[in-house]
């Protein structure tokens, strides 16, 4: 992949974040922090990783907005559908719902995506299944049940990515569960190939995933910053679930423009 592809990715991600900000002005609250931290990850999956028969499940369903923006970018849903987000009789709600165009599984309650992907990957071994989890989601026991099962069955057509922003809705993973780290070693012990990368570098995400050995299920720990790259949102718990006011909106837009 040529370097200018990653310049394109950078420009796309700027545009996705601006779309999220625009949407934010129509609703009282939205998961902006956790959506911003997943932008490069989800964009890479849709634009430079997924092939025709591959599928994506957003296990951290609260970041549904970034998936919707990619579905709009890929022309799978209309602008009207996108802007019906959380509106009365709207097409899209906060969490992805199975049956809506481009949504392969209903998520929202954490700890469900990996289990469902294990069955999907078992059913179709020639497709690659991409699944994005949050690090807070790793507190759920169901994730470890499925991690163990996927390792045992060696479902090597699963590529999982943890959006490791270290923040949940109110607390820091480092504080609530300091022993969650190192994440990669735990998955390695469960039979997965693992790697770590900067989750805001499309190039690193792409390279780590495409250079995997492909003989085991793969887990990428993508280090991210919640609210990235907006100065007053970065790593601040309040932005898990808050819509920027007009002034904050203008400032965030201008900061993203300058990137």
């Amino acid at each position, binding site marked *: 992949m040529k370097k200018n592809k990653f310049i394109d990715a950078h420009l796309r991600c700027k545009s996705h974040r601006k779309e999220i900000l625009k949407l934010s002005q129509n609703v009282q609250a939205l998961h902006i922090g956790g959506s911003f931290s997943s932008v490069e990850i989800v964009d890479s999956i849709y634009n430079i990783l997924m092939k025709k028969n591959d599928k994506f499940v957003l296990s951290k369903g609260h970041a549904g907005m970034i998936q919707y923006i990619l579905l709009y970018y890929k022309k799978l849903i209309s602008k009207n559908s996108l802007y019906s987000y959380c509106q009365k009789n709207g097409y899209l709600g906060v969490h992805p719902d*199975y*049956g809506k165009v481009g949504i*392969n*599984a*209903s998520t*929202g*309650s954490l*700890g*469900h995506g*990996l*289990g*469902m*992907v*294990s*069955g*999907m*990957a*078992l*059913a*179709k071994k020639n497709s690659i299944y991409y699944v994005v989890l949050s690090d807070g989601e790793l507190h759920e*026991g*169901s994730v470890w*049940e*499925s991690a*163990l*099962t996927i390792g*045992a*069955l060696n479902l090597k057509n699963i590529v999982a990515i943890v959006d490791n922003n270290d923040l949940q809705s109110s607390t820091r993973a480092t504080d609530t569960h300091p022993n969650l780290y190192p994440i990669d070693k735990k998955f390695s012990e469960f039979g997965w190939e693992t790697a770590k990368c900067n989750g805001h570098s499309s190039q690193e995400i792409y390279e780590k995933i495409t250079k995997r050995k492909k003989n085991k299920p793969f887990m990428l720990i993508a280090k991210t910053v919640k609210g990235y790259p907006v100065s007053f949102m970065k790593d601040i718990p309040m932005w898990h679930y808050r819509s920027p006011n007009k002034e904050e909106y203008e400032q965030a837009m201008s900061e993203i423009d300058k990137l």
Partner: protein
Amino acid sequence: MRNTFAEQLYQNAIRDKDIYVVVADISIAGSMVNFQKKHPNRFINVGVAEMSMIGMCAGLALEGKKPFAYTIANFTLYRPFEMVRNDLCYQNLPVTIVGMGAGTTYANLGGTHITQEDISIARSIPNMSIIAPADPDELKSAVDYCCNKSKSPVYLRIGKSGEKNFTLLSREKWKFGKIRKIINGNDICILTYGNIIRKAFKVAEKLKGKSASCSIYSCSTLKPFDYKRLIEIFKEYKTIVIIEDHSIIGGLNSIVKISAFDNKFKGKIISFALKDKFLNNYGGQDDLLDSHGLSDKRIFNKIYSDING
């Protein structure tokens, strides 16, 4: 019943390559061994990991397969409840959850292994169907339905081993969603489901000796319920007896009594169900049923005194 289930599933799986079985650390008796040997790629044991079992079944169904989740009843429904609700029912996927050894079957294992409220819980989830066959013969038809016709989640509630057939005499074929008359009588209507049908036959025999003839109906589909037939039953009988191996809350007792009120039924309804109380005593299944007022003797005495009272 578990052997009948395994055999019938095995037969269907020979024809249908989309049938998968996902089990959670259960000893695989009888024909389930054949399934595992013949179709190793379609038999998955996830170990003691029931959330993984249900999630995996959802994923298989999302990709067009027909999975069966199979383990002891309490582990199929209670432990992975949110996966059952969100992954299977919310997404309305054709997955059959097979709750083996349901009700008071696992009598000696204590209250942790008794499913006295499973139907009540499963009934309250939208999109969920519930089938509790009365005997191995009904179970065969139910498995065929789940393999070939079902397009949404089913909770298939079965016993364990040693159950006899009671429904072979019926003139009516088993059909999903239908109440089925097993034997015909004039005075009393007994409604039941699951392997406790044996008690219905016992009491009917004793009542016959007292010149009271009973019809016995198998209400094996608890959801969607055959209200149409129930209304006909309300018109036909003055005394309705319900016998179920399930809590008095949310099972057949609730279904019939609510409908009786709605349809202004003027007759008597006599219910025999488990109390709203945990069972933590031991012995055989009948010992547990006795302790909640479901002994053959009490069932007979209560009906007999009520119809003569």
